[in-house]
């Protein structure tokens, strides 16, 4: 019998970023006994790094704005591959989700009328992002954290879930129905094991970016939730779509990849190459030509007069801007450190820059000795977000395994092939809440609780301790480094069949190395051991990305094929879905895109471009 502590809940939420906390709040408020389990301390989750704002058609600055325009922008930004129902719910509910944050203490920047101020961002027709300077994520996480504490929700901090437990679902379902029965994990501090019995588990574990070498993501982004869902029998959709944010820092090397917020461009910043040209005008795709400015004069007038001018090309969706920067650098027009220039210093006053972009000012000053009120920044693409994730029912965020829910970055479908800036924070709130409500409802309908069987717990414990059993094996940091290099070189912004075949071969070899690695020291707060347990997740998710990317023979959003550069109509009707075959390998199936109802399709006719 394995030694562990046991707990029983109605709903266990894995992850304490925006989606996890919003789900926990919803579940607890609807009467479910709820726990949050998170790898870091409460309040440190990746949401804290979001800078620009929360997209919501509140119409505080532009009365013309409404959910239909937001819906349209989101679908077009995702190149129409988004699940229409998720995009609809998101656009409709985001304003209420933002307003309710104010009831919990959030303090957004204001308009002169005292309403929530909204700022411009890429791909959004109107100024739509509720924000607090450029630290909106911090405001969001702190507000939800304080609400979580006020509601008395149990939080298991610095605790990692390594397995989801499944078994006969506890009453309420069909006979023989199998579903979630709980989760298994360990305390990072002590290395001791924990098991939670619960009929509902909400995954809110964020993304996968730590599998890439240049990334804006922290150590936590190892794809745990994607991998746990897959292993429990759920499916992943759209995994080939990985967003490279166009503007990450490029110098000095140790800060390469750290995010430079899109607000710099939303607030007037422009991109220039080493020749001083505002090159984005050369990269306007036909798909967005009608809504994009043709001249620098028109682009500059747009900031003041959006009715009579079109958006600057710097504010095209992120996939377009990232590809353009990549092309400029490849063509030899990059900066000395392999990026392009992002210039706001010559366009806005130092006071304005410091007021609107305090974190960016601070970040460049402290880490790169660059004063952004006086000089241009050097920026380049950085791995930022995975559009793909757990395939869920749009209304309830239920995965294909009864009792399993997913919300936020770990869920797929909402953003299609490319996410618009600002749509992540609103996604967390809208679908976090829906997942929490549905998980609580599922728990009510399944009142019979089954304790996890001893053999399943013993097996999970054995697997977790295996790296200590092996002696003289490789160090986990080396394997992680090689995976990051592989994904960066072979499954990055621009992809080809040959390179992805090579990536899959390397991933297979890395899997063998992970199975043989060993860790030093003991179980108490041991980062080497923690990484050893994260690596199998990273490899499984990386394989899903590479397999799906190899299969999709077209270019769309966050997936660009050098060997298939065009967008293909046939593929616009197809999703790729990953599942785990009984032998543990990744199986890929093609699935038709859900059909958008006629009344929503009309939205694309009615709104002027």
């Amino acid at each position, binding site marked *: 019998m394995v030694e562990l502590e046991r707990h029983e809940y109605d709903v266990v939420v894995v992850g304490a970023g925006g989606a996890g906390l919003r789900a926990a709040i919803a579940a607890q408020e609807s009467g479910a006994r709820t726990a949050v389990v998170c790898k*870091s*301390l*409460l*309040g*440190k*989750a*990746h949401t*804290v*790094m979001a800078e620009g704002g929360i997209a919501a058609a509140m119409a505080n600055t532009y009365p013309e704005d409404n959910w239909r325009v937001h819906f349209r922008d989101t679908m077009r930004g995702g190149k129409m591959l988004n699940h229409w129902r998720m995009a609809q719910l998101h656009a409709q509910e985001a304003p209420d989700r933002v*307003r309710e944050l*104010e*009831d919990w*203490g959030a*303090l*957004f*920047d*204001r308009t002169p009328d*005292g*309403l*929530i*101020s909204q700022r411009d961002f890429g791909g959004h027709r109107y100024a739509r992002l509720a924000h*607090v*300077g450029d*630290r909106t994520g*911090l*405001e969001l996480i*702190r507000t939800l954290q*304080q609400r979580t*504490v*006020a509601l008395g929700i149990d939080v298991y*901090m610095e605790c990692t879930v390594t397995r989801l437990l499944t078994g006969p679902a506890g009453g309420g379902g069909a006979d023989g129905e199998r579903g979630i029965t709980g989760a298994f994990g360990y305390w990072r*501090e002590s290395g001791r094991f924990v098991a939670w019995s619960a009929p509902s588990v909400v995954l809110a574990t964020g993304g996968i970016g730590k599998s890439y070498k240049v990334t804006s993501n*922290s*150590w936590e982004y190892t794809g745990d939730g994607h991998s746990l869902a897959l292993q429990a029998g759920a499916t992943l959709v759209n995994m080939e779509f990985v967003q490279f944010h166009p503007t990450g820092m490029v*110098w*000095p*090397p*140790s*800060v390469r990849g*750290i*995010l430079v917020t899109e607000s710099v461009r939303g607030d007037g910043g422009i991109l220039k190459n080493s020749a001083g040209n505002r090159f984005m005008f050369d990269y306007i795709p036909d798909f967005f030509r009608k809504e994009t400015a043709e001249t620098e004069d028109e682009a500059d007038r747009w900031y003041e007069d959006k009715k009579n001018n079109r958006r600057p090309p710097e504010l095209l969706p992120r996939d377009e801007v990232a590809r353009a920067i990549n092309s400029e650098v490849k063509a030899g027009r990059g900066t000395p450190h392999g990026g392009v220039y992002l210039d706001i210093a010559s366009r806005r006053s130092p006071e304005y820059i410091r007021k609107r972009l305090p974190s960016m000012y*601070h*970040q460049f000053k*402290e*880490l*790169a000795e660059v004063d952004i009120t006086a000089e241009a920044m050097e920026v380049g693409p950085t791995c930022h977000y995975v559009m793909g994730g757990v395939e869920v029912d749009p209304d309830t965020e239920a995965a294909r395994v009864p009792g399993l829910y997913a919300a936020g970055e770990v869920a797929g479908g909402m953003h299609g092939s490319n996410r618009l800036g600002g749509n992540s924070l609103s996604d967390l709130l809208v679908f976090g809440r829906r997942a929490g409500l549905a998980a609580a409802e599922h728990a009510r309908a399944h009142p019979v609780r089954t304790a996890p069987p001893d053999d399943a717990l013993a097996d999970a414990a054995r697997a977790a301790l295996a790296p200590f059993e092996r002696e003289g094996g490789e*160090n*986990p*940091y*080396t394997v992680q*480094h090689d995976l990051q290099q592989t994904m960066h070189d072979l499954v990055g912004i621009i992809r080809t069949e040959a390179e992805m075949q090579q990536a899959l071969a390397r991933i297979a070899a890395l899997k063998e190395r992970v199975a043989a690695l060993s*860790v*030093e*020291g003991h179980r*108490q*707060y*041991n*980062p*080497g*051991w923690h990484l050893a347990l994260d690596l199998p997740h990273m490899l499984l998710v990386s394989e899903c990305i590479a397999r799906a990317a190899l299969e999709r023979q077209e270019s769309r959003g966050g997936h660009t094929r050098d060997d298939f550069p065009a967008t293909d109509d046939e593929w616009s009707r197809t999703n790729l879905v990953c599942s785990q075959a009984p032998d543990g390998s990744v199986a890929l199936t093609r699935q038709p895109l859900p059909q958008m109802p006629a009344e929503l399709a009309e939205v694309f006719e009615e709104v002027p471009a």
Partner: protein
Amino acid sequence: MTYDATFRVWRGDAGGGDLQTFTVEVNEGEVVLDVIHRLQSTQAGDLAVRWNCKAGKCGSCSAEINGRPRLMCMTRMSTFGEAETVTVTPLRTFPVVRDLVTDVSYNYEKAAQIPAFTPRPREADGSHRMQQVDVERSQEFRKCIECFLCQDTCHVIRDHEENKAVFAGPRFLIRLAELDMHPLDVVDRRHEAQDEFGLGYCNITKCCSEVCPEGIHLTDNGIIPLKERVVDRRYDPLTWLGSKIRRRPRD
């Protein structure tokens, strides 16, 4: 630009430990956290350290560097001479878990004790209206990334474990100030600030403001105004008389 630096890093656990000396490569533009990570991946795979964003936004990688409370991710190696030994030790105010990781649960317990934010009702159209100038006062304190460097440096608790029960520390005094200045909040927490969170223990030496990586003026803009508000409430003779005659509820 690459050179070998001498690092002394405290290693151990609640039972004790000591400084271990490492020689480790340093490259251009690196911060202390980069060097700690290099130690992890090349010389000490189980070296315990907390970190997340590596961009000064999450407040996880707090430690004492050459005796000074700092974020490891925002301390550039170029601030030290190449021959200078860099000493990294865990936050002294909190019990050690292992190596550079400390048990900061004290902070989470204090946070949970503060009476929650309670808003006035929304306006008829469902919005809250506030002026930018009014939200900015509380916004300064909401910049706090909860790195707890202010808690670490505060002499009231740094070497006085016994004060932790009666003193919430600068981080939570500015949380009280933030709520007190919040345009929507309707709860008066001045009695609690004094009686339960130990506002009176602070003798405004401003050490907390000095170490804050967000540049928050904890003492000048938060703690001193809060002290003044408590004094107004407690020692204003009319308020005192009123509370006796009309038995005004304390909140």
